[in-house]
């Protein structure tokens, strides 16, 4: 065992030395250590768009919500749609990573850091939409300061839920980063510059003296597992609570019991689409082709279309039930959305987020990385449009009731929301802020989860070696006890979790104390993951 291997074995706490991948470390740290030619122009353009949005918001603060196209009939519009859409897309990154961790899907490894980073940056950006939505910024104080709390208000519970979820997202991003900090610290060691010094301070502050001792690993494994489990119901509850602001108001189109489920599925759907787009962009810009393969996109594409089909069905269910309930308000709303004044955005959503992704994944020729990325890009845009369709039509429906009018509902005119440059600029600024924050974030943290990938690759090699053993060709350095049929041979492990969910993996062929009995069916072995801090994986 080389010194490096011994060091890595000590770092991971496992008897199985993790084989360091210099190339992987170089690629993962490249955004930190090198500045691509496009970086400053990209950051400048994105930063200018963000500044434009801030100026637009200042104009709105000075002149009122009317400059954003709001009026007494279109009292909720683009900011609420953005709030829902941006917070929604943040769930995709966190939840897809959490589910893949819990299910020990080994192929997740190169994707998790980008997915979690996407969640980390989109959530605060989405939360900021509460500020223009409230109009006067001083009202934020009434939201956060307990004497002003109105516990009957869904907005307050939104604030509680989203801020809790933000904390969970930060923790979920930080924990898997810990084992990579020493690697990153070693790479920036001795380099000059303000940013390099900032990196060193950051790595030291966040846990740069991580050694990978068994006790550290046990703690980290437990923490990651706990937060991964916690974050899934939290994500579900957060978007449900977000829907309460609509679902608890007495307006046709808002007052829907299906809305919480609808919002959760929409959040996951659009979130995974954004993750696909972010991963594709990172793969291209930072040259991650050796680690992020087309098959990753196709697998994410299958998850995407499954959620898309569910969302399509929920849309159908909502409009079917409401349209034929015999209630005048609901019927008028469904009519206007499907064939009336809002038919263009509705059918755009239906085609772009409903039909096209399904077709792209169904046809073998388009079931490719390009197809999935194209479909995901459409989904991101179309699901934002769908949020507009959810928010604006019910707000603009005339519902002034009068006992004098037939049916108790006056046949008034529908209100109109007109987009102005102010909300468009703020929306563009928020959209630009996401890649901007990601570009800045990856100037400080490795873009790939190095430790996790090294452990996965080591594990993969061990499997390959074990398969050679079963074929009667012992690999170099593999003890004879691992030969085909030998007691304890890896391939004879039964189905189930690794020796211990949170304990270092024993070397192949040496059962862990208290681990599962050996000698099970042959199919079980290769499906088990190694006992890594990241839970092993099914390839």
């Amino acid at each position, binding site marked *: 065992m080389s010194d490096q291997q011994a060091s890595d074995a000590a770092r991971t706490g496992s008897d199985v030395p993790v084989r360091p991948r210099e190339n992987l470390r170089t690629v993962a740290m490249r955004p930190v250590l090198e500045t691509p030619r496009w970086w400053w122009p990209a950051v400048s353009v994105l930063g200018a768009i963000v500044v434009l949005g801030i100026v637009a918001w200042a104009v709105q603060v000075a002149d*009122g919500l009317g400059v954003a196209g709001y009026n007494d009939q279109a009292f909720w519009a683009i900011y609420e749609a953005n709030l829902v859409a941006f917070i929604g897309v943040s769930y995709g990154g966190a939840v897809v990573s959490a589910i893949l961790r819990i299910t020990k899907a080994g192929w997740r490894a190169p994707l998790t850091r980008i997915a979690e980073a996407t969640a980390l940056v989109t959530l605060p950006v989405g939360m900021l939409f509460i500020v223009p939505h409230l109009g006067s910024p001083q009202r934020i104080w009434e939201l956060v300061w307990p004497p002003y709390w109105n516990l009957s208000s869904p907005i307050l519970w939104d604030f509680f839920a989203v801020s809790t979820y933000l904390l969970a997202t930060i923790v979920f991003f930080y924990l898997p980063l810990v084992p990579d900090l020493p690697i990153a610290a070693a790479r920036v060691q001795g380099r000059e510059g303000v940013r390099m010094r900032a990196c060193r301070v950051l790595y030291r502050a966040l846990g740069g003296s991580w050694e990978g001792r068994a006790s550290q690993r046990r703690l980290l494994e437990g923490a990651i597992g706990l937060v991964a489990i*916690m974050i899934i119901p939290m994500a579900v509850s957060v978007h449900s609570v977000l829907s309460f602001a609509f679902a608890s108001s007495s307006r046709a189109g808002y007052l829907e019991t299906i809305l919480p489920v609808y919002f959760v599925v929409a959040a996951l759907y659009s979130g995974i689409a954004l993750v696909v787009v972010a991963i594709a962009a990172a793969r291209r810009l930072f040259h991650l082709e050796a680690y992020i393969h087309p098959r990753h996109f196709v697998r994410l594409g299958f998850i995407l279309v499954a959620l898309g089909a569910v969302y399509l069905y929920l849309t159908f269910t909502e409009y079917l039930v409401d349209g034929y309930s015999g209630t005048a308000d609901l019927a008028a709303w469904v009519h206007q959305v499907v064939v009336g004044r809002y038919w263009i955005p509705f059918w755009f959503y239906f085609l772009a987020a409903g039909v096209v992704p399904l077709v792209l994944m169904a046809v073998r020729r388009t079931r490719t990385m390009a197809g999935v990325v194209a479909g995901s890009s459409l989904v991101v845009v179309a699901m934002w449009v769908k949020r507009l369709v959810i928010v604006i039509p019910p707000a603009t429906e005339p519902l002034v009731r009068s006992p004098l009018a037939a049916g108790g509902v006056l046949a008034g005119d529908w209100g109109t929301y007109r987009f102005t440059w102010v909300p468009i600029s703020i929306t563009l600024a928020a959209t630009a802020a996401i890649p901007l924050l990601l570009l800045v974030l990856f100037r400080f943290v490795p873009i790939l989860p190095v430790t996790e990938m090294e452990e996965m690759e080591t594990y993969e090699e061990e499997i390959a070696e074990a398969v050679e053993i079963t074929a009667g060709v012992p690999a170099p350095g593999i003890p004879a006890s691992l030969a085909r049929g030998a007691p304890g041979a890896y391939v004879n492990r039964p189905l189930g979790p690794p020796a211990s969910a949170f304990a270092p993996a024993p070397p192949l062929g040496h059962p862990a104390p208290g681990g599962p009995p050996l000698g099970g069916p042959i199919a079980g072995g290769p499906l088990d993951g190694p006992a890594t801090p990241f839970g092993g994986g099914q390839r």
Partner: protein
Amino acid sequence: MRAVARMVGTRRMRSLGLALAVILGGTAGAVVPLATAAGASGSSPSMTLRATGTQARVPSVVLVARLGGRASSPATQAGVSVTFSVGVDEFAGRPRLLLGSGTTDAAGVARFVYHPTWTGRQDFVASVTDATGTLVAQATTTFVVTAAVPPTLSAEATRPDGTLGRYVVGVLLAILVLLWIVLVTVLVRVHRVAGRQPRQAA
């Protein structure tokens, strides 16, 4: 001069003069209806608006609009629909929020009782439009509202199982606090362990 005299006397010049007279006459004819309309506007009903506050059971503002200017024709004062609105500052341009409408009696008086949902200085407007929507008369008044109806008055009454709801709120807040404790504890523990200095080799 001879040439000019010859031109004036020609048929062409007479035709030109006739055309000019027709044009001038037409213009004058167009001015007359405008003047008539202005005269009608001048004789259109005038209106006064008065606001008084009551504190009886529900804080209210009584808006009384009195139609005038057509005293000679009482029939035209009765049955006129007067629209009442209040200026709001939530949106740009100080738009008016429609409150409702009232119909004038034989004395030309329309009343509207408004339950304000906010206090402070409020600008009320009463307006009358004709069948085409053209503004015929308008009056404004300012009133300082000192008591308002709580906006959640009706929602409070229809909330089921209020006592149970208080427990639900307590449980939800407890879950929230628990989540924060767990997450912060995880963060602190990992950070403490990851940040611990390496052990010295034995």
